[in-house]
């Protein structure tokens, strides 16, 4: 599994400080350990998009996608891939454990796990791109609940549609939080023509002063 060190540092608010020996070792240990204990798994399915008065619908499912931002993201797409990724419960268990025994390690471990989940997402996205190409489609970037005005309240319905609990053990609690926590769901549009997005998912987001915002300062 690939874990991008630069991303890990970004999640921890790194701004080019000198990384001392202890921190360096902690970082390397955590990257190794996350890679070792992750039980990454994923699910995806491709659906036809139906445009109805109440919003975008995915054919053969109960999902209706409300909100302007997701509408914009999927404008021009005929189909939509729905994906779910998780690192599994062992990562949560370790984060819990380190939170009680060594908070510095918990923080670094958590950041490494976030980077790992992103990296699995990239892999799944590539798989979807390949399938899409074989069907004659180009793909958009990933769009997840919580981006822009797309409510995270949709996580529950999404989990039902993909049967994420049965398939990969991914559940959604009453507050729409995914458990295991290092999990991601996303929508990818399939369209006949290449989209002109930059590939930087932060650019389309409205949260201008978010401390994790990439490359738009």
């Amino acid at each position: 599994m690939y874990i991008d060190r630069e991303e890990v540092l970004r999640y921890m608010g790194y701004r080019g400080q000198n990384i001392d020996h202890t921190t360096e070792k902690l970082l390397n240990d955590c990257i190794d350990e996350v890679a070792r204990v992750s039980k990454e798994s994923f699910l995806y399915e491709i659906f036809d998009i139906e445009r109805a008065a109440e919003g975008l619908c995915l054919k053969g499912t109960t999902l209706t996608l409300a909100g302007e931002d997701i509408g914009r993201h999927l404008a021009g797409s005929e189909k939509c891939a729905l994906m779910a990724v998780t690192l599994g419960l062992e990562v949560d268990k370790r984060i819990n454990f380190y939170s009680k025994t060594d908070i510095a390690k918990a923080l670094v471990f958590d950041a490494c796990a976030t980077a790992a989940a992103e990296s699995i997402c990239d892999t799944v996205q590539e798989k979807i791109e390949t399938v899409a190409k074989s069907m004659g489609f180009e793909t958009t970037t990933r769009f997840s609940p919580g981006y822009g005005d797309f409510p995270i309240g949709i996580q529950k319905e999404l989990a039902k549609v993909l049967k994420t609990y049965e398939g990969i053990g991914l559940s959604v609690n009453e507050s729409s939080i995914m458990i295991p926590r290092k999990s991601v769901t996303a929508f990818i549009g399939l369209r006949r023509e290449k989209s002109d997005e930059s590939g930087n998912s932060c650019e389309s987001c409205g949260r201008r002063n978010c401390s994790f915002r990439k490359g738009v300062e």
Partner: protein
Amino acid sequence: MGNIFESKEFLIFDGGMGTMLQAYGLKAGELPESWNISNPGKILEIHKAYIAAGADVITTNTFGANRYKLKGSGYSCGEIIESAVKIAKEATGSKLTAHDIGPIGQLMEPYGTLSFRDAYDAFKEQVIAGTAAGADMILIETMSDIYEARAAILAAKENSHLPVLCTMTFQPDGRTLTGTDPLTMVNIISHLGVDALGINCSLGPKDIIPLLAQVLKYSSVPVIVQPNAGLPVVLDGKTFYDISPEQFGQYMAETAKMGAAILGGCCGTTPEHIRELKKAVSGLKPVRPEAVKLTAASSATATVILGEEAKIIGERINPTGKKRLKEALRNGDMDYLLREAVAQRDAGAHILDVNVGLPEIDEKAMMVRAVSELQGIVNLPLQIDSVSPDVIEAAVRICSGRPIINSVNGEKKTMDTIFPIAKKYGCLVVALTLDENGIPEKAEDRLKIAEKIVNRAGEFGIDREDIIVDCLVLTASAQQKEARETIKAVALVKEKLGIKTTLGVSNVSFGLPDRELLNRTFLAMALTAGLDAPILNPMAEAMTDTIKAYNVLWNIDKEAAEYISSRSAVNEQPVFKEKEENQSLKKLIIDGMKEEAVLTVKKLLREINGLEIVDTFLIPALDVVGQKYESGEIFLPQLIQSAETVKRAFEVIKDNMLKNAGEVTGVSRGKIVIATVKGDIHDIGKNIVKILLENYGFEVYDLGKDVPAESIVKKVQEENALMVGLSALMTTTVKSMEDTVKALRLYCPDTRVMVGGAVLNEDYAKMIGADFYGKDAREAVKIARTFYGCE
């Protein structure tokens, strides 16, 4: 009815429902159970097809009929289950109906937010409805989490007279999604009074075979197998399974020959699969392999078997004679308890004894809390140690594994109170060889009591394998001749009863000098006599080393491999260079050198008092680190490593104060209650705030994550805390933060509220009525210091 599972014929269950419904047009995301009401004809058709294929038992279409999955569907649990059982019974006629109960679909605490109590209540509602509707048995199936399975089984046993079957689903690594292996599953579930247990779903039948072998080896109840029709393959947007009905039948005949008695299918199986299965086993008869009986305790993910090499039961979570633990229990400081647990595990403990009895605290509430927290952090089985049956029952009820009860003795009254609890929750029991007449002097008389206890246990349906005898250690200083009687009694119990033994070894040396020497000698003697599970302090190396040496001399540690590797580890232990140890404490903190800082503080304490160390070294160092952080010279992990270092230093100082003055004084700058609000489970941010506040001398009461407003209000009132810190990370949980602020305003008007978390900002914080917004942990410290007038 129960004996249908022990019948001379195989009992054939039906196959998949979901896959069939999809073929009939069930949408992805649609509730399959809603068809019991909106489309009952189709459900009946599927049931009938399975009957025609030869199934003896039809499973109701109620897999997800729990209150959580039904929320927002417009249907109640009762009406869905009632209609489902009705349809099934219409199809079955003289055949049987199994009320199907699947997982709730949410993860349980501590990883998720579903409590044991809430899971139990949801299952109870289902069980009552299914039983009232006339089902013949309860099938709890496709469980991934043993804790949830345990809640479901208890709900079934306590609210219905029907037979109960329970199956779990396994991953390619041979464990369930939450980490339970087959042996652990059997060790926990088979003792809960189920009529059959087994494996379903998982992978295909072929991959189930090695797991099934484990289950059959240990299960004392009939075994059920319901595999998927292989793995799902998606072709042109449609899902297929890669095992044909014929292949399925052949594999199932294989499982039948191994010893499975109850057979059926799961995802992807159709009436055709069941027809082939029936055909394939038609010439066979069920065989029941003799189960291997173990004396074994389990956590949710690991099993410790007694009777192999000596297994250490860690004794340190017991307040007797431990000032620091007493203080932690009084303050509800769970982190201290957890650190003790982790330290014991790291030092080689296999099982942890948990005793939290203190006259001034609510032992039951504390025990329940301790058990929940411990089992979330360490994967060692627990030994529940209390004199109160109430406390014991409350604790073993919420245990996720198979615990040991410590203890019962030869008094009739005690046995008659404790054995029913042990039986119901499937626990092991420590049996003390004493009774109404006290502890007998002679080994032979202690054996007699052990025998009496084993016999009485048998009358309650508890096997001798589930008893661990403690022949009792007396102090050699007071009763010298009885030390030998204890050793003799251990040998007698092993020889005459063949039962596993435990001993609280270190009692022997009370009142004598150089206790360790006596302890380790006595331990070696007891091990030779047949002691299986010494209760001792695993941090005492003399003791663990004695076991290692014994394992060599008793030919357990083959070729002394473990012994040799443990010896080389001793030689490699880090030796701190004089230079580092002598560095100023301030620099050690700034550099985050934890171990070195601890050593330096210990040294300093010989010369100056703790408070002086705090003021001269700790706080100034923290200020430097804080400035470096704010100026961007260091970043967050570095700040926290320094904070951890200060925390360790504080611990040393506190211990020292307790030892010298009997209490910790002069440190507290004020009380702050902190929590991550209800529904939210993110707590790294909150924990960072906590450690920094503690570093600066605040008394922090950390209520954890997913904390309801009522609990926060209660704690604030109890402690008279003037400040509360709340954390929420999601837009969805800011609402419960707002509710918490409102509750605090109402019930604790003098308390100020500080909030923080990724989705908040100054305006948002004002909007929900908070007094302060802390954008990060440093800011939180500044707010607290200003509020409590420290600056």
